[in-house]
């Protein structure tokens, strides 16, 4: 039995302060969600580099664009929905079109928040992938939340980061930081490829554990770069698997990870089945993460069922099976997200 996972509390708070210390070009813009996006202490540490924009996201995009033109690197911090839904035209025309170095830190991805439909970013990856010049990243644990800063900063253009806050597990060792366009291989196997990103990775680690014990060879890949999506390891896995692939995303199944995988398979003539798990052309609602994961088939049980369908084995996992896997993998018991 492996050691219990480390649970990290609000890693961004201190990490971002330390990281920004010797980077005077880095400025932060916030739209009245400063503590909610874990930059309250950052503001107090670097008051001259922090700009409160109030509840006015459209203007915030333009201000970020102007600052970027003057050589600063704005790090916009707000809930993801208010970046890509509320101010998309400004994001696209003022920032993305001119390829300006603005970093969008989008909080509350998918169903992590009980804040309901207005606060749940369920189509952000689709929209950001569809935006020319945009690089699209997603963090899945504390190590990625810490090390994504270097990756985003190295992008010579706009960069969207689907970001986690609060308590989160450390799934990946600190010695293995976020690497652009590089999937992490979390389990090896030749039967089925499972691709996950963000919070669905921890869920899939439990399913993969169960499946491997059932004798199904699962190659589990964790994706942290949605665009560009050209990692040869992903294509190799898709080509070499026996039965096909399953994607599990905290996002609608249109335009996100499942779509990116299907595009890759189509472009390279990989004629295998792909089951895309995620929100299926629906909005979610306000409830706990566990409840919503079960309701919308975003959990380990749904993944096991999909693999059963793919392989023809038709097996399912009970709660007890998954809980056993949870205990054995030392899966996280991070505190539930609240507003």
């Amino acid at each position, binding site marked *: 039995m492996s050691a219990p996972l480390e649970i990290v509390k609000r890693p961004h708070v201190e990490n971002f302060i330390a990281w920004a210390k010797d980077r005077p070009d880095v400025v932060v813009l916030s739209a009245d969600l400063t503590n909610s996006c874990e930059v309250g202490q950052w503001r107090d540490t670097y008051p*001259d580099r922090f*700009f409160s*924009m*109030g509840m*006015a996201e*459209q*203007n*915030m*995009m*333009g*201000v*970020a*664009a*102007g*600052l*970027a*033109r*003057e*050589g*600063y690197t*704005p790090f916009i911090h707000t809930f993801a929905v208010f970046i890509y839904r509320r101010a998309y*035209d*400004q994001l696209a*025309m*003022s920032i993305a*079109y*001119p*390829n300006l170095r603005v970093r969008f830190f989008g909080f509350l991805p998918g169903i992590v928040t009980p804040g309901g439909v207005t606060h749940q970013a369920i189509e952000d990856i689709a929209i950001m992938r569809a935006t*020319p*010049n945009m690089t699209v990243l997603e963090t899945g644990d504390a190590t990625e939340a810490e090390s994504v800063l270097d990756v985003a900063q190295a992008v*010579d*253009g706009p960069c969207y980061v689907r970001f986690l806050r609060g308590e989160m597990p450390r799934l990946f060792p600190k010695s293995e930081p976020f690497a652009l366009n590089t999937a992490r291989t979390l389990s090896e196997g030749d039967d089925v490829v499972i691709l996950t990103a963000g919070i669905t990775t921890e869920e899939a680690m439990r399913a993969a554990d169960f499946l491997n014990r059932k004798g199904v060879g699962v190659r589990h890949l964790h994706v942290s770069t949605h665009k560009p999506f050209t990692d040869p390891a992903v294509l190799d896995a898709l080509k070499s698997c026996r039965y096909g692939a399953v994607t599990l995303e905290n996002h609608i199944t249109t335009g996100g990870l499942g779509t990116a995988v299907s595009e890759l398979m189509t472009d390279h003539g990989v004629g295998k089945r792909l089951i895309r798990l995620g929100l299926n052309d629906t909005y979610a609602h306000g409830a706990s993460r566990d409840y919503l994961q079960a309701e919308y088939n975003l959990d380990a049980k749904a993944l096991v069922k999909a693999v059963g369908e793919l392989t023809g084995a038709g097996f399912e996992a009970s709660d007890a099976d998954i809980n056993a896997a949870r205990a054995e993998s030392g899966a996280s018991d991070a505190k539930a997200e609240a507003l």
Partner: protein
Amino acid sequence: MSAIQNDWRADAAAAAQRMRLRGFDYVMRNNGGYLSQICSAAEIFAFLYGRAMRIGPSAAPMIPGPFTGNPGPNNPDYANGGLYNGAPGPDFDRFIFSPAHYALVLYVALIEHGRLAPEALEQFNQDGSRMELIGAEHSPGVESTTGSLGQALSQAMGVALGRRMKGEAGAVWVMMSDGEFQEGQTWEALQALSHYRLGSVRIIVDVNAQQCDGAMADVMRIEPLAERAAAFGANAHDIDGHDFAAMERALDSADAERPLLILARTDPARGVPLMNERAPVLHYLRFSSDDERARYQAAFDAMAGA
């Protein structure tokens, strides 16, 4: 001093008249176009380029090269149209051009101020040209992409904030159209400029009271604009937009903390009174008959002969 002032006014008046004539000529040869914007805004551009903006000489070719692609990671040699307003420098002003539909007005203004060759106008709205119908930031004189109206003022604020952090003295000029005051973002920007006390941002608005659907008073009322803007913290001046002396007085009132907002009330048929027949739909001149075209030709000939 007053003699110098009179000099700039006389030169600016002549430049505005040449802008009208050149724009009218183009519209006649093109069989239609954005004429009312030239008629309304000629003095505004003559004021900006002839008096208000402290800018260096153009750092771009007199005849623009062809369009060479959009900004992006694979286009490192992208040339920004702002270079027609001079190379940036700490003490120079910057020009952010908001109503990109005024592109023809801007190009004509650049020509009359020696920043663009007259023959460059032949590229206007031609395939593969930088001199697009509605400019983007590769178009001459255009520093940032603002065709989606209401976005420039926020961009200008970011530029001004950045310049303040760097200790630069230059101002950031923004030319806007009045229709943009129907957009919520404009008010977000004014609110933020006021909050951050950015008096280095200086806005001049062509208040011609016209928009695509017709008279603004019918489409969506924005008045009383000066009072509204002042309530948002702007140093607002409501003036005759064809009166250089009034523009200069407004400019002289600029202060360090409040964004300057010059509301230049203009006549969209200024110099071409024939256009009043079409009121209130003046956004784009399109001849409805040979007879109408002939009457505009006569009006042009009269202006050219004057």
